C-alpha cells in the first residue's frame, strides 16, 4: 500500500501569540478541536494586585 493511501488528511493550524487559533482549512474533523479550544483557551486577565494572605 502506498503512503498516499494511508494518509487521510492534513490540516494547517496557526497558533497566534495571544493563544487564539486559526485553521487554514477548517475540516469537519477539526470542529471538536475548535470547540475544545473555545473552552480551554488561555485568555488572561488580572483579578487582583493584592490578594489576601492565606
Amino acid at each position, binding site marked *: 500500500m502506498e503512503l498516499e493511501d494511508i494518509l487521510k488528511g492534513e490540516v494547517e493550524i496557526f497558533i497566534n501569540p495571544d493563544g487564539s487559533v486559526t485553521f487554514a482549512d477548517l475540516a469537519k474533523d477539526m470542529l471538536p478541536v475548535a470547540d475544545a479550544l473555545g*473552552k480551554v483557551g488561555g485568555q488572561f486577565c488580572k483579578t487582583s494586585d493584592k490578594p489576601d494572605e492565606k
Partner: protein
Amino acid sequence: MSHFTRVKTSIRDLECLLSALKAMGYEGGKVEQSDKGITIQDYYGSKQKAQVVIRKANLKGEMGRWSDLGFARKEDGTFELIADGFYPDTLESWTSELTQQYALGVVVKTTGYQGYLPVEQQKLQDGSIRLVMRQW
C-alpha cells in the same frame, strides 16, 4: 504589602499546562506539583498556596527576582496564576508565551484524539506558530 498579583486564566488542563511550562524551559525539578497545594512566598514574606509551583531560583530573569510563581486551582477548575507583579511588562510577556504554548498543547492533544499527529512546526515572523497536523 505584597508583590503578588493574581491573574485569572481559562487554563484547565494540567497536562497541557505542564507541557507549556516544559516548552518554556521549566521541566523536571524546576516545577513542583501537589494537589494539596504548595506554599509560595514573595519578597515581603506574603504567602499563597498553589498546586503547580516554580521557585524564584528557577525562574528566568525578572520573573524570579523577588517571588515564587504558582498556579492555583480554583473551584471552577481553572488555574489562577499567582506571580510577582513588580514588572508588569515582563509578566505580560511571560503569560503571553505561556498562553501560546498552552494553546499549542491543547491543539496537539485534541487533534491527537482524532488521529492527527504533528508533522511540521515552525515559528513565524509575526510570532505565530504554524503547525501541520496529519491524520494517519
